[in-house]
């Protein structure tokens, strides 16, 4: 029975190695946060609903517009306490800085500007992989709705 015992010993060692590799990789706080921005044009000019927005249809319809169209999507890996800037149609930009993580929630500092003029500063704590909507800036006869999501590996 020496061979099976050796096999078992080796398998246990390789399992421990796997766990060690996973624990090393799972260490959070050092890996950047994946921030994803979707810019959506909400308007009442038609009844068109962009098929790419289907997964968040119910959430968008909270705002009672008739039409929703995805204008652009952008994703960046942003290190903690650093910030990334996303261009938003209409000469606007959105600066996002992940602040910290607590109870599986990520605090994001968000600043929306139009040219050099600040429009909004906010800090939002959202679930890992969760998102929130920032809307209001007028654009092409409707309003922009920006979906902001974050994922900390």
């Amino acid at each position: 029975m020496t061979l099976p015992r050796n096999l078992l010993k080796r398998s246990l060692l390789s399992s421990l190695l796997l766990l060690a590799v996973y624990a090393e990789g799972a260490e959070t706080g050092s890996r950047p946060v994946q921030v994803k921005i979707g810019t959506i044009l909400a308007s009442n000019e038609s009844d068109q609903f962009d098929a790419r927005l289907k997964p968040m249809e119910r959430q968008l319809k909270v705002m009672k517009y008739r039409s929703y169209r995805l204008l652009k999507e952008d994703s960046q890996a942003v290190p903690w306490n650093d910030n990334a800037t996303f261009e938003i149609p209409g000469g606007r930009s959105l600066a996002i800085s992940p602040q910290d993580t607590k109870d599986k929630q990520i605090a994001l500092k968000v600043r929306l500007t139009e040219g050099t003029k600040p429009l909004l500063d906010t800090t939002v704590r959202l679930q890992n992989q969760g998102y929130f909507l920032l809307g209001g800036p007028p654009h092409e006869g409707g309003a922009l709705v920006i979906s902001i999501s974050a994922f900390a590996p």
Partner: protein
Amino acid sequence: MSNCETTRETIGAWLDGELAAAQAEATGRHLEVCAACREERHRLERLHSTMRLALEANGSEIQFEPFWQGVQRRIARKRNWYDELGDRIRGTFNAPRLAWAIPAVIVIVLAGLSINSFFPNAKIGIQSDNLATVESIDAYGRNVALLHEGETNTTVIWLYQPQESENDSSTEPSQTKPSF
């Protein structure tokens, strides 16, 4: 070439001629070059020889009949269900199977835990409670609305811009304000 560990595990079977041809050849080649394993081979050969001599000298005195009757009794005996179950369990959880099963289970569990790392956009593992908490907000004098909609777990920050700052000439007031 087989190493010392493997050779010592198989040397007994090699002496008895029970190994497959390739394995027997590898063991033989290793024994030619490894003095330690050769010594192990000689030790086993001496043991075999001693046992054979002892058996030849005293074999006729050994009473095999009671032993054989015991074996027959055990073969004939109807086994209890729990003995059968015990054997099945022992067969299922024997060492070679466990050797594969342990890392396989660990890989599956880790894959489950890591799936979001590989597929950040996948729906798997998304929190059912998606409500975000707004810790601070400054709209630089503009009106702002904050909506938490429980049914769809949606958080919306709505920025009302004064008409004079709207840079899109086509915008009508009624179209930029949602009715929530």
